[in-house]
């Protein structure tokens, strides 16, 4: 099958959706499908050969924050050209509510179209016009996928209709390498944290305030912290004598992330919100690290209400400290959690998730029907046709 995927956000800025699309593309390629991804690109680094440069995004104010978007005639022509040349059996757009290449692709294409919804969004008056337009452009979409129950609910409540729930995946094989950071594993207790330090919803502060409590019991405790941000600022609330417990790795490569996850006794996810799916937990579990997380709904789902990891009440450093110290004192529990967690991660392996996505493709594609340009029923579309003709003529 020839699959055309549209990514709404910059390929070179790592984020949930872009990572999802990279893993999905690679899973589809492994299953023997031909994949082309159209993605915005800032020009930093090199694109993999299955990604097509969708142009440089422009920063504009949108929905209360600054978004980096692609729009205008130049972007539309790029999308048109990509669809004309792609000869796709199915077009798969991601996050169709964010104004981006995904919306443009929905607008200019017809044929079997699949859309995946990633985030949940509250409806606001400012966005109601956007929802109306989204509803119209969604009318072309043959099949809809939501990656989480929250994303599905946004879709059902604001756009109408239903979506198939296919959870996010993790490529378990990428986390299999058992190599650790030099000097690990070590005695005395080692914890791991992953995420931006300056993003309050990642909850580093909750962990930082739990460490003095834990250090009273485990004097040799170490916390490996991987993620961008200023350590000085992040440790603002921590008394000076406890700061030696933290080791800041900064922004780490994928390989170092895996080494870090294999070096720790427990992975701590103190997030306080904003997670629609706990991919970070699955990565730790795929590496065999026991997980301690806040009891956000998304996390509780991944951990199946505590069966595959331990939770504490969100935002409470005391609770984090008591759950973590119980785990650090119990090597048998860590071992069985590691095994169970690995099995859980395999349930979300991209091998399986990718096959489910392909089942959705297969249930909408038709022999002999390809994704084509759509010029009917749209006045603006007809204007654009004369414009593309001009371009090809010149």
């Amino acid at each position, binding site marked *: 099958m020839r699959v055309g995927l549209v990514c709404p956000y910059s390929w070179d800025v790592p984020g949930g959706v872009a990572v999802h699309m990279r893993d999905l593309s690679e899973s589809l390629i492994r299953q023997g499908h031909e994949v082309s991804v159209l993605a915005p690109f800032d020009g930093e680094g090199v694109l993999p050969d299955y990604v097509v440069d969708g142009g440089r995004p422009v920063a504009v104010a949108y929905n209360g924050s600054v978004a980096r978007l692609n729009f205008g005639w130049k972007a539309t022509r790029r999308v048109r050209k990509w669809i004309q040349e792609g000869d796709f059996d199915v077009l798969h757009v991601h996050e169709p509510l964010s104004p981006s290449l995904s919306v443009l692709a929905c607008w200019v294409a*017809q044929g*079997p179209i699949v859309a995946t919804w990633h985030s949940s969004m509250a409806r606001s008056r400012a966005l109601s016009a956007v929802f109306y337009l989204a509803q*119209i452009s969604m*009318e*072309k979409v*043959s*099949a*809809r996928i939501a990656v989480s129950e929250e994303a599905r609910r946004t879709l059902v409540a604001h756009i*109408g*209709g*239903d979506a*198939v729930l296919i959870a996010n995946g993790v490529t378990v094989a990428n986390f299999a390498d058992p190599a650790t950071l030099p000097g690990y594993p070590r005695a005395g207790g080692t914890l791991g944290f992953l995420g931006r330090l300056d993003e309050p919803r990642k909850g580093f502060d909750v962990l930082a305030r739990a460490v003095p409590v834990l250090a009273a019991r485990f004097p040799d405790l170490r916390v490996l912290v991987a993620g961008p941000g200023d350590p000085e600022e992040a440790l603002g609330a921590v008394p000076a004598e406890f700061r030696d417990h933290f080791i800041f790795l900064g922004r780490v490569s994928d390989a170092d992330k895996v080494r870090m996850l294999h070096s720790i006794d427990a992975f701590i996810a103190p997030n306080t919100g904003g997670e629609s799916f706990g991919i970070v937990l699955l990565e730790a579990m795929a590496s065999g690290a026991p997980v301690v997380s806040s009891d956000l709904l998304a996390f509780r789902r991944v951990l199946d209400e505590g069966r595959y990891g331990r939770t504490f009440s969100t935002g409470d450093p005391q609770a984090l400290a008591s759950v973590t110290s119980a785990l650090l004192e119990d090597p048998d529990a860590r071992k069985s959690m590691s095994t169970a967690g690995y099995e859980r991660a395999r349930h979300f392996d991209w091998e399986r998730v990718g096959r489910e996505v392909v*089942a*959705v493709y*297969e*249930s*909408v*594609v*038709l*022999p002999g*029907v390809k994704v084509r340009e*759509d010029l*009917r*029923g*749209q*006045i603006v579309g007809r204007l654009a046709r004369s414009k593309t003709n001009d371009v090809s003529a010149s």
Partner: protein
Amino acid sequence: MSWWWILALVLVLLLFGIYLSMTAGRLDRLHLRIESAERALDVQLALRTAITIDLAVSGLVDPVLGAVLTDAAHAARTSAALGVREREIAESDLSRTLSLAFVDPEDVSEIQRDPEGAAFLEDLGAACRRVELSRRFLNDAVRACRQVRSLRMARWFHLAGRTSWPQTVEMDDTPPPLLSAS
């Protein structure tokens, strides 16, 4: 003064015309989507029937089950000619027969021990899952189309033309639990 009135009137009429044309375009696309979704469901139902018959005559299942499966699959295959309702019943019967046929984990693992049998069951499970998805996507398209067709302007100006009121497909399409898990 009257000049302005005429200009405003023309403008309003023009905008109204654009709105009608766009709504007609939406309906056109929705009808097209329903049509493709119906064809996709036809393809998936036919595939499911074909795999069921292949499995029934493969010698991998006992003769009684083989006869039951062939009969249900045959009924599903020929029902399309009888009418929409008859087809829904026959296809639902096939779904139920498949669920009953593969309800015992021991039976299933017996068939799966043979590599060919395992491949058959995997194909069948995937086909049942795709039937479920296709029907869901079709009914989704029907709902979206009905919503636009109920708009006052769409009714008053007969924007849907002579196309009939879209119908959902109602049937039991639950895949056999033991096959969908694999």
